[in-house]
């Protein structure tokens, strides 16, 4: 997905996006007051639009809601929602969706951010245990290789089954799918795991290796965004406290 969209506009340190995404998911969980949630959503929307173009944001929203809704058997879902809404106020019914919107707004810039290489740099700065860092960096480097392996296998199957490699083929014949795609893929995976393990041991890599530390560039915009985020959170907390007291 990161390749589909581009991030323009405000440049922020990955750490800022990370902290905001975490704070957002906690706030979404805690918030019970509609006004508090509305303040948070409005602020997160501004944050999102500072970084993404409107069109990109709309596409991302469309793509994600399609992913979410396609599985939910729309009619069934609607039945649930309307049934639930009948006995309640409209704003109460909107709360779960509001929470989803809030986390989405804060998480999109993180998910669509910079390259995988940039992400590896962030991981180095985060001072994660080596036990986690080494597998994570290997994973990030390996995903493109795995996807190209998959593409090659799929092309081979398309040739072999005379063009029957389309969507219907996959859905109707899961067993064939398993045998001609998945098993070879796992074989390749195990081979690459063995090769990479030997290569990394020969290079002297281990969980204790320092992968180099990229400098953190904490700019004025980062500070500004963080300040705004703190102010928003305080406002929301006050509203929430008022709600609890009432």
């Amino acid at each position: 997905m990161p390749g589909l969209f581009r991030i323009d506009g405000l440049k922020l340190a990955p750490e800022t996006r990370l902290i905001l995404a975490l704070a957002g998911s906690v706030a979404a969980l805690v918030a019970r007051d509609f006004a508090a949630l509305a303040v948070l959503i409005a602020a997160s929307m501004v944050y999102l639009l500072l970084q993404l173009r409107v069109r990109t944001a709309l596409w991302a929203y469309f793509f994600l809601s399609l992913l979410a809704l396609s599985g939910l058997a729309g009619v069934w879902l609607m039945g649930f929602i309307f049934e639930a809404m009948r006995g309640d106020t409209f704003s109460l019914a909107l709360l779960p969706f509001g929470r989803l919107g809030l986390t989405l707004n804060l998480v999109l810039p993180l998910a669509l951010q910079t390259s995988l290489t940039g992400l590896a740099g962030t991981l180095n700065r985060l001072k994660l245990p080596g036990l986690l860092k080494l597998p994570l960096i290997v994973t990030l480097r390996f995903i493109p290789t795995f996807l190209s392996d998959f593409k090659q296998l799929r092309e081979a199957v398309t040739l072999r089954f005379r063009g029957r490699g389309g969507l219907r083929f996959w859905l109707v014949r899961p067993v064939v799918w398993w045998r001609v795609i998945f098993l070879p893929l796992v074989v390749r995976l195990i081979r690459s795991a063995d090769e990479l393990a030997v290569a990394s041991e020969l290079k002297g890599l281990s969980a204790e290796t320092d992968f180099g530390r990229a400098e953190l560039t904490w700019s004025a915009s980062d500070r500004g965004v963080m300040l705004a985020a703190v102010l928003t959170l305080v406002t929301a907390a006050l509203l929430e406290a008022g709600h609890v007291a009432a």
Partner: protein
Amino acid sequence: MWFGGLALNTKVQAGAAATPQSFNWRNALWTGRGLFETRDLVTIGLFAGAAKAATLVVALMGGGMNPVTMVLKSALFSALWVVLLVKVPKTGTLTLANTVGALLAFFLMGQTMITLPSLMAATLLVEVGIRSLGGYQGRPWLAALAVGLSELASRVIHIAYTYLWIREQPALLAMVAVISLLSYFGICLGLFGGLRMVRELRHAGLIQN
């Protein structure tokens, strides 16, 4: 004791004083020394990446999250995890792999990290249980059991977490439960697929133990 045994995942050299007291847990948890070798960490990383990429590919090919793709991607996921546990049969492998997977989902897809600590605890508990049964070594069905149990725990945690989200509309929870059940059905299918695959891979000499 089991935690003494956990530290002895690595081969103890003859004559070396490797008592549980001399084992530096802080260092081990930070660097993995004494718990995992580099090759294990690399393998875990590759499998976590492959699981993430495979589920992503299936989700995109199936056009979103319809029931068929949901079952399929859960099956792929659990089969990969069984193969991983047979290839790296150490206590802690599943916990580490699940943690790496969750961190990856957080960085790449923005999934939540709030459930991560409880998920780690549940997986570790399952692994300690397996350890007390004698460990994964040479017993793929125990690996399958561990994956099945830890995924069950992760679904229960996920449903509890979702309840916090939609506590104003508990009726929505039924749907979350149905989706979780469906994907768990996929996980169970994948366990059998994984065991079968382990047999074939052993036959081909790609996994030795």
